[in-house]
């Protein structure tokens, strides 16, 4: 059995092709020297022209579950999600979900428009949109409780039902908990009101999402992996934005106020 923590990294990279360009650029991860730029550009152009999501399996000799390359056309650009498993398939049979499955869920969420991967310009614009309603600096989980309750009050005033409020605050808890555990231990949670939605911005200056720490073996009394948290966030929110890199992670958690 492959030891995921000791073996080659399992990774998700996101590249972006903008119509008319001759190369793709990185949004999550780096551009490696051996990246087949021409092939990626050709497929991305095709996806944009046809307006169709395309997914390719990239098989390797020692890999039963192939790596995947997904092309997701969006307006004037095409996001390219590269999922590399490097021969790693499933976790050690404990309660964690397969990382490949988690990454596939992420790719599917991008494909269906639920999850947007954001570059630096988009993050700057989206985190400044609308008006700020609440802000908390969070360093420990007791502060998370306070922030969760304050958001719940705003949601109640906005007329959201009990179930929607619970689901929204649950997602905030997942994002902030990830920040406390893996995002450098502290960061900010801001609630903003936009024309058509309430947006919670969870931002840290940690080392960026490391997808390997989603599949660490469970500690005797530790929490679950973040794979669970992302599943909840993607299922329960109306729209999610993600930016992650070596200078930090920003998550936008959106609850629509108009239908």
């Amino acid at each position, binding site marked *: 059995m492959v030891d995921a923590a000791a073996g080659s990294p399992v990774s998700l990279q996101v590249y972006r092709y903008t119509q008319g360009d001759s190369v793709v650029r990185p949004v999550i991860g780096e551009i490696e020297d051996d990246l087949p730029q021409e092939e990626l550009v050709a497929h991305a152009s095709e996806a944009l022209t046809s307006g169709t999501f395309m997914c390719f399996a990239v098989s390797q000799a020692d890999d039963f579950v192939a790596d995947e390359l997904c092309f997701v056309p969006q307006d004037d650009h095409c996001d390219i999600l590269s999922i590399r498993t490097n021969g790693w398939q499933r976790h050690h049979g404990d309660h964690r979900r397969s990382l490949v499955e988690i990454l596939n869920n992420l790719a599917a969420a991008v494909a269906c428009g639920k999850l947007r991967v954001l570059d630096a310009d988009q993050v700057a614009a989206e985190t400044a949109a609308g008006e700020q309603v609440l802000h908390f600096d969070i360093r420990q989980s007791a502060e998370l*409780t306070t922030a969760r309750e304050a958001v719940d009050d705003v949601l109640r005033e906005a007329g959201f039902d009990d179930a929607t409020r*619970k689901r929204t605050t649950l997602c905030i808890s997942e994002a902030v*908990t990830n920040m406390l555990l893996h995002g450098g231990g502290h960061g900010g949670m801001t609630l903003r009101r936009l024309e058509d939605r309430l947006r919670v911005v969870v931002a840290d200056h940690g080392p960026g999402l490391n997808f390997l720490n989603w599949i660490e073996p469970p500690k*005797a*009394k530790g929490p*679950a992996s973040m794979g*669970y948290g992302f599943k*909840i966030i993607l299922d329960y929110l109306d729209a999610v934005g993600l930016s992650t890199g070596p200078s930090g992670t920003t998550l936008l958690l959106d609850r629509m106020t108009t239908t």
Partner: protein
Amino acid sequence: MLQTTIAQGPAPTVFLAGEMDLDCADTLREAVAEAARGAQMVVLDFAGVEFIDSSGTGIFVRLCLDMKSQGTPLLARNLSPAVRGVFEMLRVPELVGEDVFQS
């Protein structure tokens, strides 16, 4: 914050109240360990749980598996629709066994 109250007896019960998140691990483990002394099983009553996230869920799953392997299985009862929804989304019944959940 999670609060626990223990009712001893032939089927000792730990009544849970409050929030099950990143912070609940020690409180939950200590209460279950105390209730489990000399017992054949321990009941966890979720009626007072107002909030649970994936960290709280993971802690519960880990504890369920540990207690089962030690021969003192847990039974969970009185789950609210919100808690049940999270458990079902995260496939908790598959992970710990359907028999953990009393109807």
